């Protein structure tokens, strides 16, 4: 049921990890709950108006793990004011996610946007 792109990202995920939330250059976002079966945590490290690194952790299905890996990859190198161009629809298309898994792409993008807001707030800029 999953595309090769999803399977590859589940079996060989990159950018898994976490940084201490207290770091001034790190923004953290979290979406979903354990009871719902999916929880996503995305962290971004910003510098000079760009995201220089992103990390994720996911408890969830293969689609959630693959989506988080893809969004973390897209985030790196992106200007802070360009992050909102990353949408759930783009994630669904890029990974050819089945319709019943589209909601996890939304959770991942929500977590990424929260991480962006957090890092911008820390940098003294309002979103």
């Amino acid at each position, binding site marked *: 049921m999953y595309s090769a792109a999803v399977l590859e990202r589940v079996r060989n995920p990159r950018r898994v990890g976490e940084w201490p939330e207290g770091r001034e250059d790190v923004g953290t976002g979290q979406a979903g709950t354990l009871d719902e079966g999916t929880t996503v945590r995305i962290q971004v490290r910003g510098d000079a108006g760009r995201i220089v690194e992103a990390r994720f952790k996911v*408890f969830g*299905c293969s689609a959630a793990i693959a989506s988080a890996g893809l969004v973390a990859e897209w985030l790196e190198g992106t200007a802070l004011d360009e992050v909102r161009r990353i949408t759930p629809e783009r994630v669904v298309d890029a990974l050819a996610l089945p319709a019943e898994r589209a909601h996890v792409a939304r959770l991942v993008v929500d977590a990424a946007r929260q991480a962006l807001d957090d890092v911008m707030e820390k940098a003294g800029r309002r979103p």
Partner: protein
Amino acid sequence: MVGPIGRSTVIYLDHHATTPVDARVLEAMLPYFTATFGNPASRTHRFGWEANEGVERARRQVAALVGAGAREMVFTSGATEANHLAIAGVAAASPAGRRHIVTVATEHKAVLDPCRPLVSSGWTVTELPVEATGLVDLDAAARAITPGTALVSVMLANNEIGVLQPLADIARLAHAQGALMHTDAVQALGKVPVDVAALDVDLASFSAHKLYGPKGVGALYVKRGVEKRLAAPVRGGGQERGLRGGTLNVPGIVGFGAACEVAGREMPEEARRMGGLRDRLWQLLQERVGGVSMNGAEAPRLPGNLNVRFEGIEGESLLVGLTEIAVSSGAACTSAEPSHVLMALGMGRVEALASLRFGLGRGTTAEDIDRAASHVADVVGHLRRTSPVARLAAAGASR
């Protein structure tokens, strides 16, 4: 057993789902597709007589494995049909004062699904809860079974967690109220001794493909005299003493008989071997994976069954990650619906989904078990590193 799937080799550990046909069984079946092709209902020539001899020999072989008389075995297209004959058959013949069925929340859908529609024809269906062990609460059973109960249906061995129900105790409660006792004994047959007299059951369902026989053939044990309390749903032709119409699947039935004979001969040794391998798998999973619990651990169980819950990971991604073993899970990939059996044990949705069923079989080797445990340890470790909720102190978890 390692089987080719695509370009890789995958270890088959899903023997509760089905088993390969044993070579000795296949050999017994083959002549009945060609040379001995007759219809056993043909009474006027040797083609029919020979086919009938094959069927009757199989009937004796199947009956012998469960301590029944040959005439008490009714061949069907499988256990689902056998369950249907038992449940719908008893319901159709039951007097007006007995319109109640008692079954268990952890039964296979092949029992639950034929029971539930009876409600629309005025029946009451009680699905007994189980304890955390997976075993029926006998006090609850005693309260549920009344003089209005027509049938009590409780599986002997559970298809997911492998636990063996105290059938004789439940049968005593059923008979005390004049109800019939049915068991779906599909998973138990050929794995543990099944004696219909000792279990005190009136009806028992069996399937060939769970014990290295062919798919598409099963049987219902109908205790002598109980046929009078059954109204056959499939009629036409009068086969099987009028309890199941239709031309018999002769090669399948011959294969079922051969499978039962092999199982009867090899079961004691095979159960010991498989129990040893299962215990080894459990030990390796505890050592190498950590953060594991056995579902239904406190009850007697099938020797080839192990159902394990993994902490800190999600079930669907676990199944997708396990590319080197064929197992099944509480998680059905398409629906992500948790197992009704694990939920009935009191588990939450997330825990139920993070469980795997390992089903060992005749072809499983010690090497398979070692490889399977290593692969599970790799995949679980990898998913736990990805997971924000893994809180594991287990030594093996850092692998």
